[in-house]
């Protein structure tokens, strides 16, 4: 038997009031920790996919939509731009490197992206099995896609038109899986990647079917008509990020968007909700502190004879006060630990939801620095709420209590 054990026995002796304080604290800590985790994970994931892309050029429209579609692959594209115009921009002396990407089709909801091979290098994609594509209609498949759809090397995928599962299927759009990519924890995990030529080919034949007669005389211009969806650009010097996008937006009918700027704008929108929610959570923590205080205060009154007894057995005032603070700390620290567990389950839950809808994966269970602050806050709440009861016990007049009995 010792003071620590006694504190725990006392907590379990009053399961109802102990668990109310505990539940409030778990809720408060859990919500804050969940918000912190999600915020960090989403930011990490966003930054992770942003690497090496200073600017995106695409069709006019919403800049955020352009970024979401061509960098994160979670929104529909703003439209297509002509290859010739894109080439002019990529030849500009300010451009360090550029990657052209184009959409057209999907396979069971996963996007098929036509892209230059540099695209895979950008995300440090490594081939796990098979080889790179050499010919049109050969594809590399991202890790989440083959895991989810059980795709093996050599399988043939019949694509559907558009980016949604419900699109019309192309009869000719049969892709052959020549390589599987290792998980890279970036967007390419959820993509099916092929050469730009494959996507052009499939849509040319498609167009030909529909407009064979009308377009026959234009056949010689065929190459000028080729289009891409967007172009990912890295500048030679970071300074160019200021003037070049504006030049494009003002002087051409293309749109240039800067991902880092759009994403921080998006986070500012998010941020408002997150802030409100975290104020609410802090309020819950404060209420849990009050509830803890009231519990301790009441139990001190009920247990005054107990306290007097422990004093007559020879315990010092200090030991008794320590016991009260201990009781409170045991509750708040276990509240903190349960709160972290709660938030981890929350992250897993949200992550599974997000994976369903936008194929994003958030799985990291490390403890953030802010969560150590939360531990500090829990300890502080524990100490503050037990301070008055502890002082009361310290000042207790045992003789008077025993004489009143």
């Amino acid at each position, binding site marked *: 038997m010792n003071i620590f054990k*006694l504190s725990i*026995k006392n907590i379990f002796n009053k399961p109802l009031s102990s668990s109310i304080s505990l539940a409030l604290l778990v809720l408060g800590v859990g919500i804050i920790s969940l918000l912190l985790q999600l915020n960090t994970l989403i930011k990490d994931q966003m930054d992770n996919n942003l690497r090496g892309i200073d600017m995106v050029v695409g069709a006019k429209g919403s800049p955020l939509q352009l970024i979401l579609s061509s960098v994160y692959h979670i929104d529909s594209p703003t439209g297509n731009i002509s290859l010739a115009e894109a080439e002019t921009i990529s030849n500009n002396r300010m451009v360090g490197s550029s990657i052209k990407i184009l959409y057209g089709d999907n396979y069971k909801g996963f996007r098929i992206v036509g892209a230059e091979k540099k695209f895979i290098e950008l995300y440090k994609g490594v081939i796990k099995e098979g080889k790179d594509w050499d010919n049109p209609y050969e594809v590399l498949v991202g890790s989440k896609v083959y895991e989810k759809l059980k795709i093996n090397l050599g399988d043939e995928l019949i694509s559907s038109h558009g980016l949604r599962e419900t699109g019309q299927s192309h009869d000719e759009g049969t892709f052959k899986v020549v390589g599987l990519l290792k998980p890279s924890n970036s967007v390419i995990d959820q993509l099916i990647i092929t050469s730009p030529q494959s996507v052009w080919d499939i849509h040319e034949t498609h167009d030909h079917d529909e407009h064979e007669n009308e377009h026959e005389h234009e056949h010689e211009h065929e190459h000028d008509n080729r289009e891409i969806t967007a172009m990912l650009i890295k500048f030679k010097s970071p300074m160019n990020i200021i003037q070049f996008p504006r030049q494009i937006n003002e002087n051409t009918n293309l749109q240039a968007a800067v991902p880092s700027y759009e994403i921080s704008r998006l986070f500012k929108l998010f941020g408002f909700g997150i802030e409100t929610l975290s104020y609410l959570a802090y309020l819950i923590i404060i209420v849990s502190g009050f509830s803890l205080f009231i519990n301790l205060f009441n139990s001190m009154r009920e*247990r005054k004879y107990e306290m*007097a007894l422990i*004093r007559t057995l*020879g315990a010092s*005032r200090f*030991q008794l006060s320590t016991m009260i603070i201990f009781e409170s700390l045991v509750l708040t620290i276990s509240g903190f630990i349960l709160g972290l567990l709660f938030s981890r389950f929350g992250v897993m839950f949200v992550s599974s939801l997000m994976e369903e809808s936008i194929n994003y994966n958030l799985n990291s269970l490390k403890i953030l620095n802010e969560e150590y602050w939360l531990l500090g806050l829990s300890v502080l709440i524990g100490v503050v709420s037990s301070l008055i009861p502890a002082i009361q016990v310290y000042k207790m007049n045992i003789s008077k209590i025993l004489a009143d*009995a």
Partner: protein
Amino acid sequence: MLKTKEVEFNYDNQMFFKFQNIDLNSNENLLIIGESGVGKTTLMHLLAGLLKSNSGSIKLFDKELNQMSSYQLDSFRKNNIGIVFQRPHFVNSLTVKENLQLAQYIANKNDNTRIESILKNLNIFEKSNKKTNQLSQGEKQRVSIALAIVNSPKLILADEPTSSLDDNNCSKVIKLLKKQATDFGAQLIVITHDSRLKKHFKKSIEL
């Protein structure tokens, strides 16, 4: 062993007590008897070091209680004095055995065989793992005696141990207390208004 001299005590200048001198030798038990309101409980608290007198001297085991700090009194109490209260008090979240273990822990002791032998001696060993609120009145009283003697005190102070008991039980409890005191080598001071106890003590004073 116990020597008091002109001990005076007053509560907030309202109640004033002046106690007669006590002189008790080693190996003697003592009955302090008095009507309600003469300051019996006050005297007991003074002897136990729970209160400090305003003037006079209380010498217990050659130590002057009035010169000790509150911390020294706590430590003196846990090493020398066991108290049996009029109404038994326990730590309700603990079992009988755990209450006794807590008392030992406070006195920096840890001796389960002693706990067992005390509980057996008091005939409540089979209640060891019961919570104290599951005990009968008589069992509670015996557990409170166990609590008073678990740390081998040299002096047992009992405050009105028999006031609510019938003649039969009164005599049983006082015999039990005296037996425990003898068995574990402690002296016994009983403070009460119960005149039935007079016949059990050789030495008694009236307040």
